[in-house]
């Protein structure tokens, strides 16, 4: 299904119901609707999330206008800015043709599943990216951009390392249908477990490199190391992907 027809379908269905709760907003919101029983005087809401651009910014195109502006750091003694992003993995999810054996009145089903052409990607998240008012300088923006560039490069490396993931399920039951259902659930669970392993490795590597980057550049306040990282961030990521035995 094309993205266009997908959007038409969703819009049409959403439009059929006259629902005042469905405001059609995207991303995180100001949170003043769900907590009526929690307070008598709601405090001022958090800073608004900038509208999601049609094409999310990348590490090369990111600007301060993409960030939420806050008056003070959300954590005492914290940084002046922070970037946030989401991770996602997608691919062509397929089940093989199952096999079913009948032995002594019991059905044994076996089913393979795999996802080929896996692409792991990151996307800038305006809801979790913020800057303290007055700190929108070029040097700090450069630092935040490099966080995103590092994340994008780690995602590329993971995509290259794990282009296909697979799982295999089996199930036994007194009926053919139930044996197949068990095998399918097992195959889906195995595939998801494999996916979770890959994502855990991805998150571990990303966090390790990003933590090193922040420590060595002192969150961007060391211009010498900031420049060094700008030139060599790929080599730093590559260290986490050793080649060969």
């Amino acid at each position: 299904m094309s993205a266009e027809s997908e959007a038409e379908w969703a819009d049409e269905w959403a439009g059929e119901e006259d629902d005042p709760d469905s405001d059609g907003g995207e991303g995180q919101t100001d949170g003043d609707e769900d907590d009526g029983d929690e307070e008598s005087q709601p405090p001022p809401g958090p800073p608004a999330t900038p509208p999601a651009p049609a094409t999310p910014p990348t590490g090369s195109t990111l600007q301060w206008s993409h960030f939420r502006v806050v008056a003070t750091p959300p954590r005492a003694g914290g940084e002046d800015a922070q970037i946030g992003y989401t991770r996602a993995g997608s691919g062509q999810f397929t089940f093989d043709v199952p096999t079913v054996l009948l032995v002594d009145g019991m059905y044994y089903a076996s089913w393979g599943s795999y996802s080929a052409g896996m692409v792991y990607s990151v996307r800038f998240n305006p809801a979790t990216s913020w800057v303290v008012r007055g700190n929108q300088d070029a040097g700090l923006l450069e630092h935040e951009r490099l966080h995103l560039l590092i994340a994008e490069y780690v995602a590329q490396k993971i995509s290259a390392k794990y282009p296909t993931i697979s799982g295999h399920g089996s199930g036994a039951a007194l009926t053919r249908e139930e044996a197949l259902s068990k095998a399918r659930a097992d195959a889906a669970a195995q595939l998801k477990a494999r996916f979770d392993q890959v994502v855990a490795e991805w998150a571990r590597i990303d966090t390790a490199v990003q933590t090193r980057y922040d420590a060595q550049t002192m969150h961007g306040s060391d211009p010498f190391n900031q420049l060094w990282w700008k030139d060599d961030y790929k080599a730093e990521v590559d260290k986490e992907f050793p080649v060969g035995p």
Partner: protein
Amino acid sequence: MTNRIGFVILAVAGTAGVRVLSQDAPVVPADSPPAGELLCRLDRTVASPGQVVRLTGLIRADHDATVREVWHDAVRVAEYDPKAGRLKNLKAGLFYPVGPPGPEVFENLPMNSTTPGADGVMLWDVQTPRVKGLEFEFKPKQLGTFLIYAKWEFTTTRQQVEAPPVLLVVRPPMDAKGRPVARPEGLDKDAP
């Protein structure tokens, strides 16, 4: 005999960490997050594909923590049967995970939302005297019944907390006579 049974029940409750309150003690509603725990809510439990659903994760306001990473996961517990024109519950052993999760099931519900490094902080979307939390608005795309799980990782300590799952039923809209209007796009195309 009755007293002895009552004593045993209280003893078991005590070992499980349950406080037995007197009748005069103030009681906080059970849908408030317990100390140290994460609790999630949906603003609706039944939706049609394309409708906006809001997931709110909450911790107590006095919980001295900030969030650096959020994970979402889902398990399908019912499938849409196009022939019968209704959702069909799966037996408990036949539940299966949605995944690898992607926007084809829940648009805009991030599998993982993160901040780089160990000391990232997400801004709270909800802040009241009792709770603070994060909100995610998303659109279900496929028919079915789902258990949605959320897990947060706190800043610095890297402690992870997982909320009890919330249930979302995604049904087709109905025509004027109450008949479901299911479209092929709403079916799980990955289901064998």
